[in-house]
Every structure is written in structure tokens, then in C-alpha cells.
């Protein structure tokens, strides 16, 4: 089977590839899902894409989208970040505790939170590049360290988010939440960075082959550290968003939602290669929207939450199997 498709006529393969880029496939799948979902929900007498439905899908997408944008950059360099889930909880706490209900403290709190997140990303990046620890282990270790801190210091929600900051989580323009727009703006910025700047090209180069990138004169260490810092900051933003939704900081808000593995799933679902070097933010946002739409459809249909997990797992495996087939196998 493997040999069969590698020796397939290049013309046919190329045509197929140009017709259906992974990103296009993701959005095609999203449209199909929305249509199928609308029909299914319609049969039960509901409407999937009414104002509430759109709001629901976009709200669900916001936090995961923020994390997944950062995760995309890390995965593009061929690394992983497993520490984001605990980092989200930590950042929600730092933000909420610094604000402590005082509207004047919003800006300092946001800056402090993002600075802390960046510091943790920096440590991740340094451990990976300077101590030469595998990214999986380095970020897993960081996750355990943050978890230990959260477990020993916090017993439950803490801090207080002022009403002014809660607007960030709840305000909307028509059916579109402001926070979702901010998330999409960040995605656009990340897309611009990855596809239009030198730094972005370096990210792809490092993911494609780290040795070759190094020999080409790219400072691979800097690139890797940079993406880990950006990923941690994105997780910090997700933490702040969740704090504004909840009204306080919650230590386990990121872990309970499984944002570490979930964000990796969204990125991979969006057509980014787990080994790095290929993919992009646009696909990731598609992946995030697919996951959120699936959730919303299942909620509307009243399916048990356990079935959701089964479908999610199956969708993930099938999607990646399709990408692998289409890529003509094994890079």
C-alpha cells in the first residue's frame, strides 16, 4: 500500500493536492458538519445556527482557540507543549488575585499574568534547547511542577475579577462575542507572522529539519524558545479569558477541560503535521471550530457526554489517517 501511492503518477497526485489543501479540507469538513448538524438538530425540532447556537460555538472556540494558536506554533517547530493546561489555571489565578476586584488593577494584572506566562514559556524553551531535554518531557515536567504548586497553595477558586473585566468575557456584537473576535484577531496576527515574516519562515524551517535549518544559519534555539514563549503567552490569554468568564481564578479550569491534549488534537485536526514543518493557524482555527461545533450539536441533540469523547477520538484518528494518505505517506 505504501509503495503503491508513492509511485503513483505525480500529475494526478499533484492535481489532487492543489484541489484539496488540508486547510480547505478542514473548512469543507466544517461546512459539511454544520449542514449535517443543522439537519439532525432540525429533525428534532431545533435550530443549530440560531443566535444562541452561533454564540455557543464561538464561545466554546475562544479559549481552546487561544491555546491552539500557541500550540500550532510549537508543533510547527516539531515540539509539543503539555504544560498549557496547568498554566491556564495558574494564569487565571494570577490575574484574578492581582485584580482583587479593583478595576484600576486590570492593566497591571494582565501585564503581570502575561509576564509570568512568558517566563514559564522561556523556561520551557531554555530547558529544551540548552539542556537538550525532549520537549515532551520538558513540558510534562513543567506541567507537574505547576500542578504541585497549585495543589499545595490553592484549595479552590481564588481572587476576584472586577465587573469591568468580566465584560471581556460576556460582551458581544450581535451573535458574535467580542472575545471570539479578539481570538480571531490573534489568529490573524499569528497567520501573518508565520507566513509573511522571516521569523515565521524560520519556524517552518526548524520544524522541517532542525539540523538543516541550523546549517542554513538559522538560530534554531532562538526560534524554539520564541515559539514556546508565544505559546505560553497564548495560554496566559486563555487563562485571563476564562477568569473573566468565571469571575475568579480557578486552579483546575484548564486541566478539567483537558486543554493540553485537546489543543494538540485541534492543531492536528487542522492539518498541521505533528512532526512539524507543515500546517498553519488557519487550519487550526478550522479544527477548533469543528470540535466546538461537534460539542454544540451533541448538546442540542441531548447526547450523553461520554459519546462525545468516543466521536472525538474517532474523528481525530480518521482525520489524521486521511491527511497521511493524502500526503503520499511518510513525508
Amino acid at each position: 500500500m505504501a509503495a503503491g501511492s508513492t509511485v503513483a503518477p505525480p500529475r494526478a497526485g499533484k492535481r489532487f493536492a492543489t484541489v484539496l489543501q488540508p486547510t480547505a479540507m478542514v473548512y469543507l469538513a466544517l461546512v459539511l458538519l454544520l449542514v449535517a448538524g443543522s439537519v439532525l438538530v432540525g429533525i428534532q425540532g431545533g435550530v443549530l445556527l440560531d443566535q444562541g447556537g452561533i454564540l455557543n460555538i464561538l464561545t466554546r472556540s475562544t479559549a481552546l482557540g487561544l491555546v491552539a494558536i500557541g500550540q500550532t506554533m510549537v508543533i510547527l517547530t516539531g515540539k509539543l507543549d503539555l504544560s498549557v493546561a496547568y498554566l491556564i489555571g495558574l494564569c487565571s489565578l494570577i490575574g484574578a488575585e492581582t485584580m482583587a476586584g479593583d478595576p484600576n488593577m486590570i492593566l497591571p494584572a494582565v501585564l503581570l499574568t502575561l509576564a509570568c506566562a512568558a517566563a514559564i514559556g522561556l523556561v520551557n524553551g531554555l530547558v529544551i534547547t540548552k539542556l537538550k531535554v525532549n520537549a515532551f518531557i520538558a513540558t510534562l515536567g513543567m506541567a507537574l511542577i505547576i500542578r504541585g504548586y497549585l495543589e499545595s497553595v490553592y484549595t479552590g477558586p481564588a481572587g476576584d475579577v472586577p465587573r469591568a473585566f468580566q465584560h471581556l468575557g460576556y460582551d458581544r456584537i450581535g451573535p458574535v462575542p467580542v472575545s471570539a473576535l479578539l481570538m480571531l484577531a490573534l489568529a490573524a496576527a499569528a497567520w501573518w507572522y508565520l507566513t509573511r515574516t522571516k521569523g515565521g519562515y524560520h519556524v517552518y524551517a526548524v520544524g522541517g529539519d532542525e539540523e538543516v535549518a541550523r546549517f542554513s544559519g538559522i538560530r534554531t534555539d532562538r526560534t524554539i524558545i520564541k515559539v514556546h514563549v508565544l505559546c505560553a503567552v497564548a495560554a496566559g490569554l486563555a487563562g485571563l479569558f476564562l477568569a473573566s468568564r468565571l469571575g475568579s481564578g480557578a486552579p483546575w479550569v484548564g486541566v478539567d477541560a483537558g486543554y493540553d491534549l485537546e489543543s494538540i488534537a485541534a492543531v492536528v485536526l487542522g492539518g498541521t503535521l505533528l512532526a512539524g514543518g507543515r500546517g498553519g493557524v488557519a487550519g487550526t482555527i478550522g479544527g477548533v471550530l469543528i470540535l466546538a461545533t461537534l460539542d454544540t450539536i451533541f448538546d442540542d441533540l441531548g447526547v450523553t457526554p461520554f459519546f462525545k469523547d468516543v466521536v472525538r477520538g474517532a474523528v481525530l484518528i480518521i482525520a489524521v489517517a486521511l491527511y497521511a494518505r493524502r500526503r503520499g505517506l511518510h513525508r
Partner: protein
Amino acid sequence: MSEPTTAAPESRPSRRIKLADGTGPVLAVLAVLLIALAFVGPAYSEPSGYLALLKRAAPLMILAIGQYFVIVSGGFDLSVGSLVTAEVVIAARLLDGDEAATLWVIPLLLCTGALVGLVNGLITTRLLVPSFIVTLGMLLVLDGAVFLWTGGSPRGALSEAFRVVGREGFEVPLLGQLPWSVLVLAALVVAAVVFMRRGTGRMLVAIGDNETSVRLGGGRVERLRTLAFVLSGVSAAIAAILLGGFAGVSAQVGDGLEFRVITAVVLGGVVLGGGRGSVVAAMAGALTLEALFSLLNLLGVAGGLESAVQGVIIIAAVAYAAAGRFSFRTRRST
């Protein structure tokens, strides 16, 4: 327990590293921890204390054997934690306290584990999906499917006969009570060491080191990598039987085990990406982790710090191993 690796056959001196990378340090750390336990805990002044430690560590060590096969051949198995939970829940549901059913439920559990491993392996090798994703998907599917089947919470009960292996032991002169789980563990250790010294085991390591050369050399890469996943699934089933017996039915029994066992294997000097490390060292890593937790417990360290210490140790262990090697390979597996 470490003798099998150190006593390599003299006939082929440098064919394979006698003491695989990282084996030395983990054994040294383990020895220090075991001695420290004797000073700190009065229970460790006699063999029974250490046997109890082994009994606690047995499930993790068995999982480490399975995970070692997968990691050394260049993959990941993230599904073991949820597989353990699934197996325990399935056992409770099928047994429902019926002693007579034990005889067919245990083989059924082993088959389920093998089947899950087979599916993981086939999707990884035939559909070319990275094993990280396959087993992540499998984790989600198992988590959902089991509770879909039982309606949200574990039902039924384990039979007494089922729980004997994880809980009971038999009297041995001098040592006191020897737990069955330690006996099971010993049998599996011997089996794993023998397996790794024969052609199939060596081929598995070779695949993790350089898949292409094994394929060009005529090795059946797909079949062997699938075998590694099957073995990992079976090890999860055995660990589930021990854990179910030891701790009873719970929906959280396997929570976080996948990362803990990967920690253990990496602590044993096995390199993620494959091709380096020994199975005995992987098990020593698991035992070291459990010994460390016991020590922290005895020293009265708060629960929260336990995971922080685990985090620091895992990073330090890999950094140490990387510093010792000239070119550390961070290859990603498929």
C-alpha cells in the same frame, strides 16, 4: 533484579551496550532511595516492608514493561491509563461479584488489552497516523465508551477470587508474606528480559534506532511495531487486574497513569524516539518513582509537592542523560 543486564554474554562483547544508557544512574538513585527508606521508615527494617513497596509498585512496573516496548520501537502509548480504567470497570460489570465468572473474565480482559493494542498498532503502522495521535484518540474513545456502556459510573463488583492476585499473598519462611503480585511481576520481568535478549527484542530496539535500515534489511517493521502495542495493551490488562484487586473498583483508577509510566520509563534512561535503553532500567525507573513517593510520604511532604518533585526529577534525569551523550536525538516518532 539488575543482574540480567549487567551480566551480558561474553561471546559478543560490543554488539549491544551492556549497561544501556542511563541504567547506571537510575540503579544508583534507586539504591540510595531504598537505603534512605530503611533509615526513615521503621517498616523498612525488615524484608516485608520492601515487599510491600514492590507490591505497590508492581502495576506501574508492569505498565513500564509494556510502555518500554512501544517507546523503544519509536512510539508512544498514551492509552494505557484509560485502558486500565476500562479494564477494571469491565471486570466489575461482568463479574458482578460472581466467583464462578472469574475464570473466563480474566482471559477476556487480557484479550481486550491485546485487541486495543492491536488496533493502536494497526492504525499506527497501516494508516501511518503518528502513535501519539492514535493513542490519544484511543484514550478518548475508551474513556467515553466504557462510561457509555456502564451509564456514567462503574457498576457491579469484583469477585473475591479476582482480588486475590492484587491483594493477597502466601507465607514464605524468612520473608514473611510474599504477595502474589510480586510473583507475577517476577515472572514478567524474566519473560521481558528473555524476550529482549532474543532476535525479536533486538529487532524492536533496532526499529526505534533506524527504521529504514531494518526495513531494508528485511525486518518486518510493521508487524513488530504492532506487536509492541499489543504487548503494551496486555501489560495494561495485567496491571488493571492487580490494581483492581489492590484498590477495588473506581472510575479514577487509571487517571494519569499514562504520563506516570512514561515518566518512569524515561527515568530509566530510555530515550523517547526509540533505539536506546533497557527494559530492566525502565522497570527500575518505575520502582524508583514509587520508592520516591513512599519516601516523600514518610518525610511528611505535602501531596502537592509530590508532583512538583516528580516534574523536577524527570527533567533533571533527561537533562543528565542528554549531557552525557554527545548528540542527543530529539527525533519525533511516527
